[in-house]
């Protein structure tokens, strides 16, 4: 729609210009001569309008970039992979190859071939794959020490010929059973290239491979774990799983030696179970079919619907033809991922549009301001022309033609310039992201749509031209006497009923908007309508009531109404436009209120400056200029305030965000920065022994160590028929007397009435055979996921053994912890007695509080290296949470950079305005100099005046920004990010932003002021210049 409008507009303007060029040659030549005569003025006008347009085009380009980068990320991650097929059991069960589900997880590679044959056109490729997750380390040489490790890597076993046809454009090398191909990402992580050796580990078993090739990320489908993928032949992965002991192996003798007898018994029964299941496995087992829909990488998302239908039909047919009952799930990967990404992107883009909206508004104000100034400068000239008998319309066209020439130059340069500026900003952001290594995978890629460029150009032309028309009509309307006398403010004129036409029309429009807005509860109109009514009443009464009183009341009313609107209007925060509107209304109303009540400003300022003796003569000048040009000053202050407003909001929100992150980290980690997670139970494992003799990481590095023993239990359909499959597996912390000893600090939120203290509850858990303590997530509405079970103290919960679902027992809820994500706690004794869980089935979780001053990341890396063979995953809780908020952080950084650029533009806008006003005031400066003002004093007065204007803008922007951020925080942030995030104003950051913008904007005025003050007074006193 915007594009059509733009084209219509451009065609119209071109037509007008053609008309002028042919029919009104004289105007064109006068305009051209005017421009040539006032080169400096013209340059400034073009510059101002250019900056305004640049703000628009850069906003659009950042939007494009964001959108593109997010989608690109999905395509890169998934490559040609559009969807995949796994069995129902695999898609529901968290542990993909738990022994009891083996036969439901694996199926024959034949299914892949069958589907490939049956699907035809809509499907490009079907790849039968065996997926396993292992840990990987780079080693110096075969059998050597690990150098760098990556705890979780996706092993992708596939027929390499089929893979080549399917995913990659590059010819794959011949591979022996020792060779491996890795993704670029994994190669980067391990700093490994062709020829290097990698060691894969699972359950304490290892196997080494040599890297044969590194494939670009977009040619390796990353199903999971961030695209750390290794590609092997189907047989190799199969062999690995075999070796690693889950399919048909024995526990290695060396390991067995360390295991106590009763533990051996446990392992042998587990193995026995696995063996019996293995008998039933199909030949050439795989656990996934990867599907590539017809079409390109980006196009696959659209065609996937048809291909999924075809795959489903083929799978059904396979079942009937072979008379089997394989239950498959088809997952639309790319379409979902693109949808999710688009959703995430849309959220960011919306926020960006809001912030960009403010910058664009500032751009528009700048353009209008520049042209008002241009018109003011011409006042006298226009007065003379009018006195000589030139008609208003002629005058307007004369001015319009000149303006149009400026517009075309400024808009085209501005649109391009904005895009160039965005490119710079993005390059900067990339640099920042790289240095802070905020992200490993997501990359921002600069791009822009041609439409954006065109729209920006069109919008620039439209706005500039509208500003010109506005300014020239205003000028030509001026009474000739006023023009000649250069009256600063129009004097009260006799009332004419015609002056009421606009207010009355506006009032009616306001009524209409109110009507629609309130009946349909349309927040934009609910805000706009009443405000329009108030403003129109004020304009209508202007001739009878004191202007100051009238406009003060009107702006105060709009201000109060707008700031309170979110409180009493329903569905206020729906769209992004309402935010822009709210912000603009707040800023404009406040500035008008201030400008009409200058006493409020002057008194403190003159008091302050008057204290300093040398500044006393300047005080009056500093204040008088901005107040004499009320309209212009108001526009300038609003322009500046709007940008500062947006900057403040984003800084505060970022502060709240970081605060939320800190709270979350504190809550989740309790000060333990690292967590060691074991893929399986390793009886007799002891961290101190594992670290003995190590240099890079020692037990001394940890201030505190906390160990939890965890085991999975099952909530069966028999007892919980409604429960979602994903919640059926429940991980329990099995307590021991030692653990209870450590755990007494863990406060309870609720407990069974029969217990007097928290302590008593924990003791009872250890002594009784049927007690359970649940985490807060089971009881509190606020933190509970939907579909999750809910319990109160005294209620009962039935748990079953995950391996043998017939063994079940009832446990009574003794208490609920105060923290989220804790427990559930049951004593190991009770679990053994009740549902037969062996003490050797527990997997430990170590939590480590790293000593102050140590680099957490490097400790984590060292631990990964040491424990790589135990299959230990070292989780940095901090980065885990940060990763979760990564995209948001990147986005905030990008927005901040963009707003930083916006601020720069705001400052230079103020600079342009100051250059122009100093130029306008040359004669006055000459007078001051003749009167004995020193050069320095003249410069200082202009400097302080700019500071006064900028400070007003800053105060209004910061004040309203904080208020608005608070409203956003209370309405949006609390629910979405974290309930416990407290409101937080980053004063230091704001202080820096404020001082930089204040000083920078004041500095912009120094140069023109100095230039003018330096000229010999007699020169500036010559009017002609």
């Amino acid at each position, binding site marked *: 729609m915007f594009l059509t409008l733009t084209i219509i507009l451009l065609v119209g303007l071109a037509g007008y210009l053609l008309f002028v060029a042919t029919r009104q040659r004289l105007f064109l030549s006068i305009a051209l001569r005017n421009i040539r005569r006032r080169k400096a003025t013209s340059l400034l006008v073009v510059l101002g309008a250019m900056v305004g347009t640049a703000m628009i085009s850069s906003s659009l380009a950042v939007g494009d970039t964001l959108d593109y980068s997010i989608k690109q990320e999905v395509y890169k991650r998934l490559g040609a992979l559009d969807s995949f097929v796994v069995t129902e059991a695999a898609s529901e069960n968290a542990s993909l190859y738990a022994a009891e589900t083996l036969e439901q997880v694996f199926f024959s590679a034949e299914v892949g071939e069958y589907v490939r044959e049956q699907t035809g056109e809509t499907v490009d490729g079907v790849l039968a794959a065996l997926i396993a997750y292992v840990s990987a380390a780079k080693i110096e040489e075969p059998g050597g020490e690990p150098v760098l490790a990556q705890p979780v890597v996706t092993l992708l076993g596939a027929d390499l010929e089929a893979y080549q046809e399917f995913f990659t454009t590059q010819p794959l090398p011949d591979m022996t059973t020792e060779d491996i191909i890795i993704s670029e990402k994994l190669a980067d992580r391990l700093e490994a290239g062709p020829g290097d050796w990698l060691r894969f580990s699972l359950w304490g078993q290892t196997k080494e491979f040599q890297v044969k090739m590194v494939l670009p990320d977009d040619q390796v489908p990353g199903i999971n774990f961030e695209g750390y993928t290794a590609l092997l032949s189907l047989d190799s992965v199969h062999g690995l799983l075999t070796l690693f002991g889950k399919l048909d192996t024995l526990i290695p003798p060396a390991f067995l030696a360390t295991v106590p007898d009763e533990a051996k018994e446990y392992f042998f029964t587990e193995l026995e179970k696995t063996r019996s299941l293995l008998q039933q496995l199909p030949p050439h087992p795989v656990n996934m079919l990867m599907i590539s829909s017809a079409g390109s990488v980006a196009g696959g998302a659209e065609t996937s619907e048809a291909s999924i239908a075809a795959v489903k039909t083929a799978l059904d047919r396979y079942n009937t033809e072979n008379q089997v009952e394989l239950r498959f799930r088809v997952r639309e990967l790319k379409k979902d991922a693109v949808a999710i990404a688009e959703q995430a992107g849309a959220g960011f883009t919306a926020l960006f549009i809001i912030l960009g909206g403010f910058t664009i508004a500032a751009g528009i104000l700048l353009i209008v301001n520049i042209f008002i100034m241009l018109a003011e400068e011409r006042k006298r000239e226009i007065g003379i022309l009018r006195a000589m008998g030139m008609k208003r319309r002629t005058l307007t066209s004369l001015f319009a033609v000149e303006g149009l020439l400026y517009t075309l130059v400024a808009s085209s340069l501005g649109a391009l310039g904005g895009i160039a500026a965005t490119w710079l900003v993005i390059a900067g952001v990339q640099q920042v992201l790289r240095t802070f290594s905020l992200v490993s995978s997501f990359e921002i890629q600069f791009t822009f749509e041609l439409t954006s460029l065109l729209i920006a150009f069109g919008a620039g032309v439209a706005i500039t031209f509208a500003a010109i028309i506005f300014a020239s009509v205003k000028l030509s309307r001026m009474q000739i006497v006023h023009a000649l006398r250069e*009256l600063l403010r129009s004097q009260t004129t006799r009332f004419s009923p015609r002056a009421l036409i606009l207010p009355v029309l506006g009032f009616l429009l306001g009524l209409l908007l109110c009507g629609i807005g309130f009946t349909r509860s349309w927040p934009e109109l609910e805000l706009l309508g009443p405000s329009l009514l108030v403003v129109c009443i004020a304009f209508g009464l202007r001739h009878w009531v004191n202007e100051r009183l009238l406009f003060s009341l009107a702006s105060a009313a709009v201000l109060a109404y707008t700031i309170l609107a979110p409180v009493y209007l329903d569905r206020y925060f729906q769209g992004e436009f309402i935010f822009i509107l709210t912000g603009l209304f707040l800023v404009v109303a406040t500035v008008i209120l201030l400008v009409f009540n200058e006493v409020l400003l002057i008194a403190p300022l003159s008091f302050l400056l008057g204290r300093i003796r040398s500044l006393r003569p300047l005080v009056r000048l500093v204040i*008088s200029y901005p107040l004499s040009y009320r309209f212009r000053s108001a526009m300038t202050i609003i322009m500046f305030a709007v940008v500062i407003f947006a900057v403040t909001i984003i800084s505060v929100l970022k502060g709240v965000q970081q605060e939320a992150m800190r709270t979350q980290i504190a809550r989740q980690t309790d000060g333990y920065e690292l967590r060691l997670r074991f893929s399986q139970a390793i009886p007799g494992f002891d961290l101190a022994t594992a670290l003995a003799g190590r240099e890079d990481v020692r037990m001394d590095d940890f201030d505190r160590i906390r160990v939890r023993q965890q085991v999975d239990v099952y909530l069966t359909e028999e007892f919980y028929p409604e429960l979602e499959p994903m919640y059926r597996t429940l991980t329990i912390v099995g307590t021991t007397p030692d653990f209870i000893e450590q755990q007494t600090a863990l406060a309870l939120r609720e407990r069974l009435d029969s217990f007097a203290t928290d302590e008593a509850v924990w003791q009872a858990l250890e002594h009784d055979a049927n007690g359970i303590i649940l985490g807060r997530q089971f009881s509190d509405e606020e933190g509970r996921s939907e579909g999750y079970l809910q319990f109160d103290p005294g209620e009962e919960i039935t748990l079953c053994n995950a391996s043998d679902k017939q063994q079940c027992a009832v446990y009574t809820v003794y208490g609920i912890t105060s923290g989220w994500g804790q427990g559930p706690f049951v004593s190991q004794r009770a679990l053994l007695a009740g549902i037969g869980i062996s003490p050797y089935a527990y997997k430990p979780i170590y939590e480590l509080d790293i000593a102050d001053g140590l680099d957490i990341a490097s400790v984590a890396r060292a631990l990964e290296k040491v424990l790589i063979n135990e299959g230990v995953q070292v989780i940095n809780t901090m980065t885990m949470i940060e990763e979760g908020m990564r995209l948001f952080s990147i986005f905030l950084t990008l927005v901040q950079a963009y707003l930083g650029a916006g601020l720069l533009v705001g400052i230079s806008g103020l600079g342009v305005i100051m250059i122009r006003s100093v130029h306008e005031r040359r004669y*006055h400066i000459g*007078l001051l100099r003749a*009167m*004995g*003002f020193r*050069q320095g004093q003249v410069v200082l007065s202009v400097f302080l005046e700019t500071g006064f204007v900028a400070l007003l803008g800053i105060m209004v922007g910061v004040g309203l920004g904080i208020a608005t951020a608070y409203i956003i925080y209370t309405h949006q942030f609390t629910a979405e990010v974290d309930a416990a995030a407290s409101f937080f104003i980053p004063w230091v950051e704001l202080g820096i932003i404020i001082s930089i913008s204040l000083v920078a904007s004041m500095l912009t005025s120094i140069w023109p002021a100095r230039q003018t003050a330096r000229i*010999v007074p007699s020169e500036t006193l010559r*009017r002609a210049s």
Partner: protein
Amino acid sequence: MSAAFIKAASLGKTYTINTQSVEAIHDISFSVDKGEILTIMGPSGCGKTTLLNCLTGLDEPSSGEVWIDGKNIHTMPDNARSDYRARHMGFVFQYDNLLPVLTAEENVELPLVLTGVSLKDARQAAQEILARVGLEGRGHHKPAELSGGQRQRVAIARALVNKPLIIWADEPTGDLDDKTSVEIVELFLELNRTLQQTFIIVSHDPDLAARTQRIIRMKAGTIVEDTRNS
């Protein structure tokens, strides 16, 4: 007789526009005693304003030197020159003397505030001098709201308000009616007598000239006649 209060030695000023040069004044030498009141006359464009600007240090002459009170005004650093102007000189220009953003009163106060006089004293002095030039009660008007002659009188008031040693006035009575003109001249003469202030006035008005002590006539950039009224 002591050394001359104002002394100009072979002053010349040439303006160059593109390649053309206009010699606005050339080889002007004369001196003025302290407490003298004199009129410079001459046809339009003969260089009167240029001469004034060079004498006051508002402009740099192309050649020659100017001494005021024994100091070479053109070798003085800019700040010292500004301060000297602030303390000892008052100006009335040919047009637009006032800052449009300030009221008449504030315009008049400005030189006093600049030299460190308190606001209260400055306001009082401004009101007194405005009354002397016949603008009682007009102090709160902005220049745009005053007539041409009224503006000129505000400018005169401002030039006089800090009781400077020298007053430079370029066509001070050009926009005034006869009666007001006479009043202004009377004021000048009185101040000249009582406060020994030096007045250098550019005027086309022969009546005004006749009442001052001395008349300098210019033509095409040079002094053609220098007469003293008896």
